[in-house]
């Protein structure tokens, strides 16, 4: 089964039809998707800025992470669930959309960046947890996360103008 065939199949499934045809299904999902962005990117950007040594330099990275993680994880969950349903509803149109492809590629990269940070750079955290200015590798991880989520938002908005 090719990716396009998978999208065509997804497009015809029950939940996908519901997304397209229920009176306010689409609007409610987009609303949840947008609120999810605020919670996820809105909270995560402050951790990224702290990793870059640009803000709240007196706060421990670990404390900021512990405090913000529940908010950005809930936001990501909202965004992924609503996003997956929206995708199912418009799978074939999304498949051919350049901005959708960019968005998915960058989300994957952002996820890999977070995983890489978690398992390598982040393991040295005790050394720089309280440092106002973390080492270059940490600052770079924060910057790349910030830039990638910015690109995801930009591509997501461009997508809605070019898909329908």
């Amino acid at each position, binding site marked *: 089964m090719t990716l396009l065939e998978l999208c065509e199949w997804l497009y015809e499934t029950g939940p996908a039809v519901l997304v397209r045809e229920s009176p306010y299904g*689409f*609007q409610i999902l*987009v*609303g949840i998707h*947008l*609120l999810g*962005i*605020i*919670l996820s*990117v*809105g*909270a995560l*950007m*402050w951790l990224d*800025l702290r990793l870059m040594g640009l*803000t*709240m330099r*007196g*706060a*421990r990275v670990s*404390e*900021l992470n512990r*405090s*913000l993680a529940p*908010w950005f994880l809930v936001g990501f969950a909202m965004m992924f669930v609503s996003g997956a349903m929206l995708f199912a509803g418009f799978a074939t149109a999304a498949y051919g959309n350049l901005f959708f492809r960019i968005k998915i590629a960058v989300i994957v990269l952002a996820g890999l960046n977070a995983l890489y940070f978690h398992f390598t750079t982040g393991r040295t955290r005790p050394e720089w947890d309280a440092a106002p200015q973390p080492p270059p590798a940490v600052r770079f991880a924060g910057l790349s996360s910030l830039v990638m989520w*910015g690109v995801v*938002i*930009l*591509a*997501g*908005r*461009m997508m809605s*103008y*070019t898909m329908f």
Partner: protein
Amino acid sequence: MTAAPSQQIPRMAALESLGSWLEATRVAQAVGSSMWTVATLSAVHVLGYALVMGGALVANLKLLGLIVPSVPVNAVVGPASRGITCGLVISIVTGILLVSWKAVAAFGNDIFQIKMLLLLLAALLHFTWQVRVARTAGADGAALKISGAVGLLLWLGLAVAAAAYILFE
């Protein structure tokens, strides 16, 4: 253009004439004639909006006492304030350009009016009250919490109105 029933209400008439003036500007016509310009402006608008909302989120969560307990209130609200300011500049500039070519319709739209009112209230609350209580050493915990709760509700309302405006305009 047909005579609108809103003509009897001075506020609506003023908004309508401001809208028509804006629509007639050369910038508005340039924006409205290019879908790519509108899409790009809209994307940058949402980026600014994310900055505003991110700042509002951490500031109000801190005022409510829900995050980073060992960090002083002002060490969170101060930077968050700069984030909000930066995001507001981006969002307002792109926002004006975005409505410019359909200003009469936008200004007359209920959801748009609610969105602008909530933005005004939330920003006023933040830049007058919250920034001040955050700077006050030994500020009353209850006052901080109330300002955080009211702030969070106003910004959430703005987020809902913003989503509704995108979807139902």
